[in-house]
């Protein structure tokens, strides 16, 4: 079990629509800011947000959805999966486990599609389904 940090779904207009801290968040990374525990969350957001630049560049260069690890900050790595609608599934993690991450992304993508199929869900709005949340966390435990 890796100490995976943070999973986030970003809509095409760069709005985070789902956030989850999966795995045990890495404490020592927090030392980049003042060493406070809760700063980890915002550091993760910063790293993932910054990685959007690179996603933008890479997304058009490949037809694959899984972009692998595209960015890193110290020893945190950002892996990204871009859906056809340019919704970005981003995972911040610290261990290399490409296969697991790929499967994780694919399954989350399926879950996301199910969310999209819900006629009451407005694409691009926040995903509040608790069912989705539990499923994602279960997948994270399974693959990461």
């Amino acid at each position, binding site marked *: 079990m890796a100490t995976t940090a943070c999973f986030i779904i970003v809509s095409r207009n760069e709005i985070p629509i789902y956030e989850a801290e999966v795995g045990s968040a890495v404490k020592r990374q927090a030392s980049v800011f003042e060493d406070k525990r809760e700063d980890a969350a915002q550091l993760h957001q*910063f790293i993932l947000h910054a990685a959007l630049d690179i996603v933008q560049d890479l997304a058009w260069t490949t037809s694959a959805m899984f972009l692998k690890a595209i960015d890193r900050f110290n020893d945190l790595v950002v892996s990204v999966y871009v859906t056809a609608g340019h919704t970005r599934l981003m995972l911040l993690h610290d261990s290399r486990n490409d296969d697991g991450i790929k499967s994780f992304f694919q399954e989350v993508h399926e879950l996301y599609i199910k969310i999209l199929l819900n006629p009451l869900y407005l694409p691009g709005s926040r995903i509040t389904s608790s069912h989705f949340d539990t499923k994602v966390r279960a997948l994270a435990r399974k693959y990461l």
Partner: protein
Amino acid sequence: MVDPATTPLGKMLLDEITPVVMVLRTPLVEESCLKNGLSLVQTLSPFCNFTNIDVPVRTASDQPYRLHKFKLRLFYESDIRQPNLEVSKERLKQVIGQAGEKDFSELGSDPPQINNVVGRSESEILPSWFQIFNKELIHSVSFSDHEAFDHPVACLLVVSSKDEQPISKFVDLFNTNKLPSLLNDGAMDPKIMKHYLLVHDSQDGSSEKATKVLSEMRSTFGPNDCHLLCINSSHDGEIEHQDNPWDSYKSDASPSQRLGCFLNIDDFNEIKDLMQELSSKHIIPYMEQKIRLLNQQVSATRKGFRNQIKNLWWRKGKEDTLDSSNGPMYTFSSIESQIRMLGDYAFMLRDYELALSNYRLISTDYKLDKAWKRYAGVQEMMGLTYFMLDQSRKEAEYCMENAFSTYLKIGSSGQQNATRCGLWWVEMLRTRDQNKEAATVYFRICSEEPLHSAVMLEQASYCYLLSKPPMLHKYGFHLVLSGDRYKKCDQIKHAIRTYRSAVSVYKGTTWSHIKDHVHFHIGQWYAFLGMYDVAVAHMLEVLACSHQSKTTQELYLRDFLQIVQKTAKTFEVLKLQLPVINISSLKVFFEDHRTYASAAAASVRESLWSSLEEDIIPSLSTGRSNWLELQSKLISKQYKESNICVAGEPVKVNIEFKNPLQIPISLSSVTLICELSPRSDETNMDAGNSTIELQKEEELKSSTTMGDMSSEVSSFTLSEADVLLESGEAILVQLTVTPKVEGILKIVGVRWKLSGSVVGLYNFETNVVKKRIAKGRRGAKSSPSNDLKFLVIESLPKLEGFIRHIPERAYAGDLQHLILELRNPSEFSVKNLKIKVSHPRFLCVGKQDELMKEFPACLEKKTVAEQSGALGNSSKRPHALFLFPEDITVQGNAPLLWPLWFRAAVPGNISLLITIYYEMGNMSSVIKYRTLRMRYNMQVLPSLNVAYQISPCPSRLRQFLVRMDILNQTSSESFQVHQLSAVGHQWEISLLQPFDVIFPSKSLFTGQALSCFFILKNQGKSLTSKDKSSSLSLPLLESDVNLQASNDRLFDISSSPLADFHCCERSQGVSSQDDPNTVDFILISWLPKTDGVSDSRLFSHHACYCSILSTSPITWLIDGPRTTHHNFNASFCQINLRMTLHNSSDTVASVRVNTFDSSSSSGQSSGATTTQASVPSGNQSGWHEVRALTEIKVTSSIPRNEVGKSPSLGSVFPYIWSGSSATSVRLEPKSTAEILLEICVFSPGTYDLSNYSLNWNLLGVNDQGNEEEGTKQSSGTCYGYPYFLTVLESA
């Protein structure tokens, strides 16, 4: 491709990697120079940069080339050593600090738009002090022993003409113990080129002595190496230099001092000539010579195949012995140092090819020797050389990367070299527009030292910004990283500067943590600098941080409030995010002609009220026309649509505040913001006055918007509320505004004070999108803004009312006597009162004389005389509408009391709506009438479940057996049943058994069920609808049964209110037609007082339309002997039966009696007309099977299979119907007929004579087309019920 030399890096290299000249001087020389405010090196340095020389150079190759630009670096001998780390750090800090101060002026302003930033050119974006900083950083590693380009090429010895014995001074100057360690420890050749300079200060006298010394020098040191320099030729010190070359040396301490003021133009030129000669005639040729010499040596020892093999072998052998981290110590005489020197000299003379070949040569050696620092240095130079040659970018980058990582590998000592290498690398990348890569290199330069890394990160962020396309996310992130590091080194101004830029990147972001972090920190820092206004503006952004943890929320709020307190003023914030205002919860309650007794009444939908009031208020059209008539006089058209409220009566606004945080927040002084302007329509017509009036209005407005409630001019009063919101709590706050004068009232918004320090304002008008005004929509055409605008009219009487002691919870059937109390506080009277109740089943209005009556005694049965008088009322249906007597007015303090009867009719939650209409006593008002609306919610619990089952008495006509089942459904109460009454005069009811016998305990406890039986007799024998009116005159029958043993008085069910409620109950039923075949029951029960406090309660349970007919209008009775004796030996037995038929319907019925034997086993149609006498039947007796098929219209032709199945084959049927198989009878309405039947019995036994059927047909139904009858069956078939006959063999 641009010439590498013109790029920033090229310029930097041409600046930095140049020959160093060591300057040795006597104190007197320095003294002379300081007269100009300059040191000797400072005086000379501006002239060491030659941009326009033309010197032919020939290095290793035979082909000469020309140098056009050249530069010398002059240093005192004391400066030629590795700079102290601490000192350089201090200097860097100073540079940064100064820059921070300089840039700070603009920090108070708003951050720039990110779009504007992107378009700007590089020079606009990058702060200029980065250059200075980077230079300082590079200088911090100069004069290291592993690089030859910082080693002095020549030595300039300077002696003043004032010095005693100048010649010996020259010798003394080059004294080894003063010389830098580089020369002493063998890192470089101590035998360097020397040049002798004699300085003559013209102020000290003529130059004669100086020339004498010069000639002496020339004879001693050689004629070419000696020079004389005359300075300070100007005596008055007034020389002004245009483009003063020493400008850069201006110190901040004495900015007024004019540098070089004693140097006139001759001195100027002399210095210039001196330096030019020094470089072109001495240094360059010396270097050329040295290069050639070294090249020869290198070629001899290292070039060629043989030397290479030898070298390789030799080095391999050496490898084992030398394993120190820095590799072997190389003296200047070692071949490695010489190669390095050769390379550096060639680089300085711009023979890059030569330099590169030598660097390559030496780098492998160093690598093999594991002299990593030297290796890295050579790699670095290789990279730079590749760059200057402008070839093979890959190679260049590879070299730089290699050098950088090697420097890092050797630990802390290489850190600064790595920084320098990185900076060069970055410049190289940026020259080639590889900003993204440059940024990563900057990121890698970041060291432990936070200040360095802060600057590096900031530069990295700018690289991201400058890259194409701009990478704004990265830009923002690195700015934030850099800002945090600045903060760590207390460079708050820099921190703010970076965060300010970051704010512009993250503006409007939905990444909540990012937004909070940036705004919170920048807010804190601004507060730290005392710029509280800006700080508060930023802190406001983070207040609604519901996603953060509780501690963070506390921290944010605490810091925010601290900052606000420090500002020592009250902020009025238009968009305060705490608490969240739920604008969709906004509801305005106001009273025009509709007034409300309670908030509960006001929350009922208007449509419910208007439907309720439909028939009591004057009709809409006339009301409207009157309305318009009056309005048109008073109000201009634009206010026709606005709402009306009355002066002195509060307008209530409900608004919901929600606390998004997990910590409680306190709000105080929550008030509405209102404007009340006196009506200005009249004045508008008069143009002359309008301006004055308008001014007044403006004044008034300004005073009211300030919310100054205490001032006398205020024409309305506002309520104030204090709220404490717990975590996540939402509270609905009711605020009121009470206008005092007529005019136009506008509700603008709401204001509140957060934690006693910050005032939040919320403007309703700005968010009108989803506003829902509960009351007073005047149709779709009214705009939402008008909903908050009220026309205030003069004060009117307003009725206040309530019902005393109305229960909130009651058991079903509970009957109570209530009192309605109405008050009118104003002095004007109101009249023409009407009241209407939404649920007359629950509430009915009593008569005035009932007010004082004692309950429930007033319900008890009176004497016969009284009763007959009361009967007249009972037939009247009560109406939901009740008109008060004309003469009743309500005025002043005397309340009007009126009795009401309440009965909890059905279980459930009931919302009772009561509206009271009244008219004003004075008719001058705009509003002529008003309504008071009351609403009471109550919960009715089930109490007794009463069910009646009526079945006709088989033995007697028109007598019925009533079975009453009572179940106590309450959870705690026990009831006493008191009385059962059958409503109507034709019914007589009596107990089958004494009640004491069946129910001795008298109380029905929780969950207990009780069944008892009654006999119900219909006495109205020939009562037709025609005779109904006369029924009153008939003698009264015992329609009530006392179920109590005691002789309590019975209640009179035919008087108000029981009769009224019963009527209501009846009207709930399906058919309102008085069907004589139905009966209504009223059960009256008690809930005895359990404690002394509450009264015993009376309950009435009504059951309506209990049908006495189970199947058809035809009832019949078979009459005959039950037991007979017969001698079957003689003959079969013939028995006569009599069937009595009764038609209880209103029409003529034709009845046909069909008798049939069980004959259908043959499959033959058992048409009732055929008698199947021949079919034998077994000796079974008493079979019957009758299905309840009453609702199906069965004609006689349909085979009755049920009947035919039962007989077994071969059995003899024990009896047959004899006589006619079908008899038709015509029955007049409500009449009785008799027919005779006969059976023959063949053997003794007990027989069930149920195998006959009655087909009845109501005649004349279709002819009359009676609608009520149409719903009923017009014909049907009844099957016989068991009649047991026992036939015995007689003796």
